[in-house]
């Protein structure tokens, strides 16, 4: 089982490395540059940006929930929630 897993991991590793080499050759860049662009620039920037977006969205949702009508079925709210829903 361990040998099979090890073989599978090796195959995936080789396939992904071949992908980076192919991407380099198809885009006219180098293997070094493609790796640097993907793992040192694009992915960290995307991860940080998406994390920030998630934090902002969670805050917006929290604010939107705070101003729900407290009495179920009541149509008017004490505070207009639309002010907080961008």
């Amino acid at each position, binding site marked *: 089982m361990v040998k099979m897993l090890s073989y599978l991991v090796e195959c995936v590793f080789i396939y*992904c490395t071949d992908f980076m*080499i192919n991407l380099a*050759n198809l885009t*006219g*860049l180098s293997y070094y*540059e493609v790796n640097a662009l993907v793992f040192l620039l694009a992915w960290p920037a*995307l*991860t940080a940006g998406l994390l920030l977006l998630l934090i902002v969205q969670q805050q917006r949702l929290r604010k939107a929930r705070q101003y729900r009508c407290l009495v179920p079925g009541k149509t008017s709210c004490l505070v207009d929630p639309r002010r907080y*829903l961008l």
Partner: protein
Amino acid sequence: MKKLSLYLLPLLLAFSAMVAVNEYARGTIRESSVSPKGHRMNPSVATPDACTWNCYNDTGYCKRHHVKWAGDYFAFIDPLYFGMIRALLATGEYGMANVLFLVVLWPLLMSYLLVKPLLIQFQIRRLRKRHG
């Protein structure tokens, strides 16, 4: 189950794109290579015209012959580039660490971070409709 497949969708799309690129490139490669660990799509011999597995084995060769724009930024890129390689090597299983962190965990994290804000936005819209 529906939510899980939603979170995995960006990952599946990315892997499909990877397979598409590889299979397209396979038709353009004249010579592949075989290593002790498996069949490789690209050759292993060093060529100044294109990157091969030699660039994986010898980063210096790739930097000398293939780098186009990053030449002015080696001093900034190298510590991060080789730092990441050293960190993966330090685990003792470079291939496994590569696949685990760079192919599975990090893409999974990005997939989650991509889908979750969208789901939250749908929730906010539902709340807005209810109060609007």
